[in-house]
């Protein structure tokens, strides 16, 4: 009975294809979960950076002009709409660089009461933002590579999950605050 043999073969092939597709769907699911976690971590770091910047701006340790620039940038970054977020965060990076461009400024903040702690916190957060962003964009790149594949598009394995987007911003830290670090974290592409 050749038809039965053929049917069995077709069933076997379908089964194997099914197993493969379900494995791929599992992989994709894991990648999406990784992006969500990385995005949450990035949001947390950005928020931390904006908070400490705002704190410094209102602490009265900076001159009034620097305070205003920093306060405005930090406020905009925290309250930005999703579409404006990358621009607002980049502007905060620029404002931080402009205010903390010189070693003297950093030294002055350190000398103020509680300034040592605040500078340490700011230095940590300007270092961690590029880290978190790199990890996020790395996950996005992996998911995009898989989602562009034929098998994923044809069988709609991604379901209704939105196509992942990288978070692009200028995250270069102010030089005096980045000094203790190695050579990393200074590049702004991602």
């Amino acid at each position, binding site marked *: 009975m050749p038809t039965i043999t053929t049917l069995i073969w077709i069933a076997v092939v379908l*089964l194997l294809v*099914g*197993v493969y*597709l*379900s*494995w791929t*769907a*599992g*992989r994709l699911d*894991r*990648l999406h979960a*990784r992006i969500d*976690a*990385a995005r*949450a*971590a990035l949001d*947390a*770091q950005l928020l931390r950076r904006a908070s400490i910047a705002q704190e410094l701006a209102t602490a009265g340790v900076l001159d009034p002009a620097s305070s205003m620039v920093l306060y405005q940038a930090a406020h905009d970054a925290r309250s930005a709409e999703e579409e404006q977020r990358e621009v607002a965060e980049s502007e905060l990076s620029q404002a931080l660089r402009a205010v903390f461009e010189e070693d003297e400024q950093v030294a002055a903040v350190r000398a103020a009461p509680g300034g040592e702690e605040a500078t340490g916190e700011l230095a*940590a957060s300007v*270092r*961690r933002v*590029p*880290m*978190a962003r*790199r*990890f996020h*964009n*790395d*996950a996005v*790149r*992996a998911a995009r*590579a*898989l989602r562009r594949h034929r098998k994923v598009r044809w069988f709609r394995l991604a379901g209704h999950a939105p196509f992942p987007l990288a978070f692009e911003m200028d995250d270069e830290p102010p030089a005096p605050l980045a000094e*203790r*670090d*190695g*050579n*990393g*974290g200074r590049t702004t592409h*991602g």
Partner: protein
Amino acid sequence: MRIGIVCPYSWDVPGGVQFHIRDLAEHLGGLGHEVSVLAPSDDETVLPPYVVSAGRAVPVPYNGSVARLNFGLLSAARVRRWVHDGDFDVLHIHEPAAPSLALLTCWAARGPIVATFHTSNPRSRAMIAAYPILQSALEKISARIAVSEYARRTLVEHLGGDAVVIPNGVDVGFFARAEPKPEWQGTPDAPTIGFIGRIDEPRKGLPVLMEALPKILDEQPGTRLLVAGRGDEEEAVAALPAGMRERVEFLGMVSDEDKARLLRSVDLYVAPNTGGESFGIILVEAMSAGAPVLASDLDAFAQVLDAGSAGELFANEDPGALASAAVRLLRSPAAREELTARGGRHVRRFDWQTVGADILAVYETVTDGAASVAPDERTGLRARLGLARD
């Protein structure tokens, strides 16, 4: 924080990656974190309390040389048990792109995984063949660290994606505090040059230095060259004129303490490596000990020496350039002092204080709000069939 670190190479064989993991584990342990290291080792080896053996590594030919690796179901089961028992907040694996314990861990565990890429291996044939499997395992890594900008570039080219650069750590204080040894110290007329590395490994560059030596001795006849490292001493000096051979002193293998004392004593440290370096920890050690450094202009070295401002660079594999740079430095104590001062400032970024804080920052970034590490229970075939019938 409970941290699980996976060492890809045998614990009982000395090597850069092993030392890095040992120092990292001890540094993190000193900060009060719970650290467990999974490493291949022979059963006889006495391990520090924080190391768990993953069994003996098997020598197999791979990628043109014999590598000692762990693989197979037995190793995978051990990894799973370690991951399960450790209940880690974060896993830190090293060299995941080689067929090693690290790759196995990546495959057998889920949760926040940090990976450090040490060497910049060109993409191998086996890697291309295994790419679909490798890819799905490497996709689990939440954060990648490269030890230098150079290593990061190769990583991006071969695997795509991105990584943060955190350099290897050095215990700067250990080298800075070492006691100089009078017989290794030079005088203005008879300065000493130091070299540390395998004598019979051409990529470490001793032949280049030997070729440059006659010219250095012509200009500065009292100079002594101190060579520390394993290899055939007769063969190393064979190319030198007979009268000059006595200017080279071989110290053989030296202990960590003697290495530090040697670097503290010499008037100039020369690193003539011709390739195959992705970082250059020895340069950082030399700068920590206050030795002026003269190194070949490999990408990795140029980066460690801050493009030549923390140490002098010469054109790679050019004995003439090496000789003239060495003579210039040996003749000018002021230039050497300047290099020592700049090197001393520059190495602070490689101190474990700084490097450890950066690595912890990476751990904190990936564990923020994430579940802890657990063995990856593969979906059973039945569950898959259930899904497949949809």
